[in-house]
């Protein structure tokens, strides 16, 4: 038995060496990319130790002293952190509740539209904001949503309402984030659903019609079940990124007037780390966020596998 094991092992090794020789050039090709991954994706993992250290500029990450969970004690005691955490959860929940169904609804409505050319024009226009950066969109929204000159507020005033400072009033800022986020992403998000809608079997519609289904019954019993697998995938993906918050959007739209309601984990980490140079504390917050995010992705996938027999991996 041991003898046969050794032969198997040596055979394996021989075949491995043979494969190495055969793929020598392929291995040379992939080497720089693997080095890149080790440096830029695994290198920063070492920096996570900072979450349990007090960073000293001169000693670097390795030389800085360990402080155990001191950063976390400071974190969990701080009112500011809990406020930021609450903001993150609230904004993520709002964005999820309103933002997730929006592209599905848009796709379903576009699907009902008979004028194909018109449909294509609407689609093209709706994709455009996806390509414009939040830096530029911030500039545009500052003009459009301006309380004094903006057209939206002119409209409100002409209807006898008071003008609203959408970007500077804590009561409206989160709503503004949700609406501008949908405005930017709804068209692009609908592409996947429209493709899925195109794949729904036409015969099912005919059958539904013969059975006397109206439009709503048809949508409910044929269209939506047809795109459920795609909706599930998108749901898993969006649950996974819930605490990642749309950093670019909030980072650019955030200002001092709305810090109390708009400051989220991403912007908090940036301020603590890059601006205040409190690297240990910022890394502690970031590790906390990444762990939540990982748990969310894994559990979303787990539930989806149990319920739908359908997971991402």
């Amino acid at each position, binding site marked *: 038995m041991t003898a046969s094991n050794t032969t198997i092992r040596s055979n394996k090794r021989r075949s491995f060496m043979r*494969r*190495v020789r055969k*793929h020598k*050039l*392929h291995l040379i*090709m*992939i080497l720089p*990319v*693997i080095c*890149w*991954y080790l440096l*830029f*994706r*695994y*290198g*920063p*993992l070492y*920096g*996570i130790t900072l979450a349990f250290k007090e960073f000293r500029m001169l000693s*670097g990450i390795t030389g800085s002293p360990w402080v155990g969970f001191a950063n976390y004690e400071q974190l969990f005691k701080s009112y500011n952190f809990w406020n930021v955490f609450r903001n993150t959860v609230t904004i993520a929940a709002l964005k999820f509740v309103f933002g997730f169904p929006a592209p599905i609804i848009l796709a379903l*409505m*576009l699907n*009902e*539209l*008979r*004028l194909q050319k*018109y449909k294509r024009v609407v689609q*093209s*226009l709706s*994709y*455009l*904001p996806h*390509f*414009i*950066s939040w*830096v*530029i969109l911030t500039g*545009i929204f500052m*003009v*459009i949503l301006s309380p004094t*000159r903006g*057209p939206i507020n002119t409209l409100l005033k002409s209807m006898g309402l008071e003008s609203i400072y959408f970007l500077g009033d804590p009561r409206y800022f989160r709503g503004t984030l949700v609406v501008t986020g949908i405005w930017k992403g709804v*068209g692009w998000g609908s*592409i*996947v659903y429209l*493709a899925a809608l195109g794949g729904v079997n036409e015969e099912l519609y005919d059958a539904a*019609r*013969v059975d006397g289904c*109206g*439009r709503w019954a048809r949508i409910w019993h044929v269209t939506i079940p047809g795109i459920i697998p795609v909706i599930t995938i998108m749901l898993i993906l969006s649950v996974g990124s819930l605490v990642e918050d749309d950093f670019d959007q909030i*980072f*650019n739209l955030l200002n001092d007037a709305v810090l109390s309601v708009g400051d989220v984990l*991403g912007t908090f980490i*940036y301020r603590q*780390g890059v601006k205040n140079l409190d*690297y240990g504390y*910022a890394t502690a917050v*970031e590790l906390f966020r*990444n762990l939540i995010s*990982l748990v969310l992705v894994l559990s979303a996938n787990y539930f989806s596998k149990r319920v739908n027999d359908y997971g991402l991996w």
Partner: protein
Amino acid sequence: MSSVPVKRGRRKHRIYESKGEPYFQAFLIIFFAILSITFVYPYWHVLVNSFTTPNFASASGFRLWPREFSTDAYRHMLSANYLWSGYKNTLIVVALGWALSITGVVLSAYPLSKKDLPLRGFFTSLILVTMFISGGMIPTYLLVNNTLHMRNSFFAIVLPQCISTSHVIIARNYFMTLPNDLEEAATIDGANSWQVLWRIMLPLSGPILATISLWVIVSNWNAYFNCLLYITDPKKFVLQVVLRRIILTDSKEMTAASEAVTNTTDTDIVTLRAASIMLATIPIICVYPFLQKYFVKGVLIGSLKG
């Protein structure tokens, strides 16, 4: 009961149309017209602001047409050095980022498409794991800034994110669908792996590489955050960062910061901002109609792997 299907059969074309259908279609048409306006109007508003006098631009309300036409704002902005250097830096970053990304994706996706590559499983998981676990903003910042000393280098902007795992996987899946025969034939003829990759695989993978190129170019064109983190020399700011300063800093700072824009007042800022926003947006709006269908195809390729 039994007569109903017959009746319906006869009016075959009509049953598809319920009585409310024309009204419903009319509703959809009006709804989408309004929706389209909300998608287009914000750009139009800023475009009009940029082509008018500060006086008109600071008026409130909707705009259809610039009543007082003026190109002053563009003349001001185009004579500002920082805008041109922003364009130049962005072009460098886009070109550099594109070259690094495509090289990285091809050099990893092609070997990984070989089923009997030694350590293939290990390499694949090494790459995939990074989709779920990452060091994060601060450790990456310290690595690039303090350990690698890349501050104020364009490589600091593009190198930390030049390879995207999803791009590698998409390209690998594509390479795996290509027929093996060509490659074998070339190998028999004495071609080595580089020649096979260069002469056979790359010419065959035009569509997928074009799609990935578009993604990479757009994301590098819009990228600002790494520049904000690693670049402190204003001469090396990319366009988005220049714009961010113009848009977010208040007018006094801006006039102090810009050498070309002198004697400006608060109202001038409205048109100057509008012009700079337009100068950064117009390139995208110009190429977008031609490239849109490739982007849409790309989304579908990207979602297929799920």
